[in-house]
C-alpha cells in the first residue's frame, strides 16, 4: 500500500483502522511500516481517509503473497476461493473431501488479528510432515511448497507476513489423537496464535468420527462450530 502524505489533513481517523498497526504518524506525517503491512487493503477499501491518502499499488513477488492471503476480495487461482482459499465443509455434501473415518484437521496460523510469517507456517508443516500427516491438496498454500513431503516452503517467501494461513491435513480416525497432540505441541512453540479445528461427516446415528477421540483426549472444545446441513445430499 502506498501513502500520499501530502493529502493528509491530520484528522487521525486512519491510525486505528489497520489490523496489524502498520499505519504510523511520525513528525506529523502519515506513513506505513512496510514490514508490518500485510496488504489486506482495509485502509483503502473502507475509505477511512476522505482525501485518499492510501493507494493500492502493483505488488512485486513475493510481496504479492501478502495480499493473496490477507485480502478477502482476492481469489486464489488454485481453488477459486477468496480469503484463505478453502471450501472445506462448506461444500462437503457435494465434494465429499471428508468421508467415512477421514478427519480434516486444520491449523489457522496468525488469527485472530495478529498475523504470521510463512516461517511460522513452515514450523507447523515441517513438524507435521515428520509425523506422516497428509496435507489436503485443495489449498492455495500447496503452490508454495518446494518439498511438501518434508513441509518445506520456498525460502524466498519465508519472511513474508500475512494475516493468517490455514494448513489442513486429512487424518484417519485411528491416527487422530497422535496428530492432534503433535499439532498442539507444535503450535505452542510459535509466538503467534493458532486456531485448531477438526471436521468430518455425520454417521447415520448422528456421531462424527472425531467426537469420541476429542472426549478421550479431554480437550475442552469451544461450543461453536459449523454444520453443513446436507441440503445437497
Amino acid at each position, binding site marked *: 500500500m502506498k501513502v500520499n502524505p501530502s493529502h493528509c489533513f491530520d484528522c487521525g481517523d486512519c491510525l*486505528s*483502522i*489497520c*489490523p496489524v*498497526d502498520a499505519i504510523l504518524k511520525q513528525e506529523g506525517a502519515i506513513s506505513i511500516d512496510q514490514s508490518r503491512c500485510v496488504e*489486506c487493503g*482495509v485502509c483503502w*477499501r*473502507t475509505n477511512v481517509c476522505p482525501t485518499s491518502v492510501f493507494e493500492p499499488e502493483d505488488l512485486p513477488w513475493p510481496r504479492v503473497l501478502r495480499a493473496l492471503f*490477507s485480502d*478477502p*476480495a482476492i*481469489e486464489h487461482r488454485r481453488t*477459486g*476461493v*477468496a*480469503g484463505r482459499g478453502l471450501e*472445506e*465443509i*462448506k*461444500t462437503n*455434501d*457435494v465434494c465429499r473431501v*471428508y468421508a467415512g473415518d477421514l478427519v480434516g484437521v*486444520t491449523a*489457522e496460523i496468525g*488469527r*485472530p*488479528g495478529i*498475523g504470521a510469517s510463512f516461517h511460522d507456517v513452515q514450523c507447523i508443516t515441517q513438524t507435521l510432515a515428520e509425523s506422516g500427516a497428509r496435507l489436503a491438496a485443495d489449498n492455495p498454500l500447496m503452490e508454495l511448497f518446494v518439498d511438501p513431503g518434508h513441509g518445506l516452503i520456498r525460502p524466498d517467501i519465508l519472511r513474508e507476513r500475512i494475516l*493468517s494461513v490455514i494448513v489442513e491435513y486429512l487424518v484417519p480416525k485411528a491416527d487422530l489423537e497422535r496428530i492432534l497432540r503433535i499439532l498442539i505441541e507444535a*503450535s505452542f512453540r*510459535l509466538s*503467534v*496464535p*493458532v*486456531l*485448531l*479445528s*477438526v*471436521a*468430518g*461427516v*455425520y454417521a*447415520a446415528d448422528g456421531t462424527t468420527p472425531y467426537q469420541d477421540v476429542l472426549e478421550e483426549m479431554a*480437550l*475442552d*472444545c*469451544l*461450543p*461453536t*462450530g*459449523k*454444520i*453443513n*446441513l*446436507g*441440503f*445437497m*445430499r
Partner: protein
Amino acid sequence: MTHSLYRLGGNIWGDDWVVIARAARGINDTGAVARLRRFLEQARVSGAINWGHGRGGSRLNADWKTMLAKLVDLATVTVVFDDSVRLEVFLEKIREMNLELSITVSGDIARIREICDRHGWKPHSGRQALGLFGGRECLPPSEVLCLTSQCGHGLIAGRRVEDMVARIRARELTPDEAALKLGRACVCGLLNPSRTVAVLRHLAERDESRRIIRKHQEIQNKYGLKL
C-alpha cells in the same frame, strides 16, 4: 475458510448465527450467481441483519445492487441472524427453495443440531472449534476479541475497537454509529451489528470497564479463552 468458526463471546451478547451458501467448484457452480442471488434476497426478507461476499462487500459497506452485481459463481455468500426463530424460518424456506447450493450454519453446535432435529434434517458434515493455541500474549482483552473475531478474516483491528469505545465515551459517536464504522472493515458482511452495538455500549458505559477487561484477560489466560 474457517472464518466464521471462532466468533468469541458465546451467547452472553445475544444470538449470533452465520449462514453460508456456496456452490462447489467444477460440480454445481455453473449459473450459481442466480441461485446465490435468490439466497440473498430471501435472507433480506427473512430478517438477516448483515450480508455480503468478499468481492462485493456487505450491508455495512456497499449498496444492495452493487453487492449483487459483483456476485460470481464461486462466491462464498454469508448472511447473519441475531434471532434463532428468524434463522429457523429462513432455513426452512431455503430448504423448500431447493437452490442447489450447499448451506452451512455457524454458531452454537448444540442449538444447530436441535434445529436440524426439529425439522428432520440429517446434517452432512461438522467442524468443531478446538480452541486457541500457540502464542496468545499479544491478543487484546476478551471483550475486544469478541468484536475483532466477528470478522473471520481478522480485518477488524483491536485498536479500532478501543478507538470507537473512546469516541462513544466522548459522545462523538453513538454505539450504533460506532458499530457501523467498525463494520465497514469486515468486507464479507460477517459482523453482527446487534452484538457489536451491545459490546461497544457495555465497554463505553461501564466506568470500571478497563478493570474488568484486565480481569477477563486474567481469566482468559488461566482458562484458555473459553469466555
